[in-house]
């Protein structure tokens, strides 16, 4: 079977793959940055004392976590135009990924904050530090250390989730494979190449995760 493997067609379609890779990386980076901002704001509301901030965000997080990403993507793809908002596919995809990852990131950050020992808060309290000072100097720096690995995990998930955008005809990496398959009918070549590129991104992020772990080692150790 492997003797039939056609390397030439992969090389021939390489410009298309690289174009797809470029879009995938671009979408992932933009969506990740926006998701981080969304996640931080959502988390701040989620742990707020005020119900008016807390309850809408709990609803948002539960909706995202209880529905498949593909359904969310379709919702924005078909739903936004009916609301009279016309957005190109790529932006639609970024919005969907941002809101999806944002909800998970909010929960990751919240878990990090909750993981900080109650005694740390009491130490801050008893020395007279106010809420913002306790957050800034004591809780967030410690939460950050435990949050980095799951955040990078979420980044990896986000990169792979961009593949779903091929279903709303965004010209990303998976879409390149689909194009090759429909033009030449060589799915093995097409999707092995696609998989290879995803793995490259994955190992890049994983290296970053391992490096950051070493950097933050003292925060892990207590």
């Amino acid at each position: 079977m492997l003797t039939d493997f056609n390397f030439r067609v992969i090389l021939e379609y390489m410009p298309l793959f690289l174009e797809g890779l470029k879009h995938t990386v671009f979408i992932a980076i933009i969506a990740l940055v926006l998701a981080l901002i969304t996640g931080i704001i959502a988390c701040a509301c989620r742990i707020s004392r005020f119900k008016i901030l807390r309850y809408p965000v709990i609803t948002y997080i539960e909706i995202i976590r209880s529905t498949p990403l593909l359904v969310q993507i379709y919702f924005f793809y078909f739903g936004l135009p009916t609301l009279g908002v016309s957005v190109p596919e790529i932006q639609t995809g970024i919005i969907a990924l941002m809101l999806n990852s944002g909800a998970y990131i909010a929960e990751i950050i919240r878990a990090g904050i909750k993981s900080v020992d109650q005694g740390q808060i009491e130490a801050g309290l008893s020395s007279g530090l106010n809420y913002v000072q306790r957050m800034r100097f004591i809780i967030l720096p410690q939460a950050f250390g435990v949050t980095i690995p799951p955040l990078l995990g979420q980044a990896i998930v986000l990169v792979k989730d961009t593949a779903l955008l091929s279903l709303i005809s965004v010209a990303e990496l998976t879409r390149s494979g689909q194009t090759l398959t429909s033009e030449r009918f060589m799915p093995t070549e097409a999707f092995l190449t696609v998989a290879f590129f995803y793995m490259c991104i994955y190992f890049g992020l994983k290296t970053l995760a391992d490096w950051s772990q070493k950097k933050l080692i003292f925060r892990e150790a207590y």
Partner: protein
Amino acid sequence: MIEFKGVNKWFGKLHVLAEINLFIPKGEVLVICGPSGSGKSTLIRCINKLEPIQEGEIIVNEMSVHKPSTNLTKLRGEVGFVFQQFHLYPNMTVLQNIMLAPIHVKKIAKADAEKIAREKLERVGLSEKAAAYPIQLSGGQQQRVAIARNLAMSPEIMLFDEPTSALDPEMIGEVLDVMVGLASEGITMCVVTHEMGFAKKVAHRVLFMDEGKIIETGKPGAFFDNPKTDRAADFISKILTH
């Protein structure tokens, strides 16, 4: 200095502080002891409002602690608190741990705060550990840093919640030595501890609690050698014969 007036506190149905009336004058070293669950930690945690109370009033330096209008930052700046588990900030060096509150609560300039911090570190005998992280220190050293961190705020009152209970036996002495030094300087101290040697040596008064009530108070010599109540006698015999 510190006054409890008819204080009652419940954790759910558990009556953890029952009708506490207590006056601690300026400069007194008070040792609080009693069996586990008797409310002694809760008692001192109420003094700087780490815990709310349901009834009564606690007055510290003329401030009513649990009144919503009380300036808690000011109150907590005057009251130090040393925890059983030290609770140093692991993301900061020893020096940064000590400087944090003076800079951000007392608004002392950074250079001055550092000077104070080094002074207090020397006081607890750990000058050479200024740049270390808490995890690199032994338990006894961590607790001494925690004491220095409190001293940097120049508190008038220091509260100690079982400061030596989490320590290995050979480290208890170094922490107690620092506390004995403080006691001789006229800082008001409330110490929850079972270290009877410390109580006999420096305490002005011993307070025995059980089931949320103050059962007995007295001079340390009289209390340990000649307790007035059976419950105190029973408790003392248990801690001395373990």
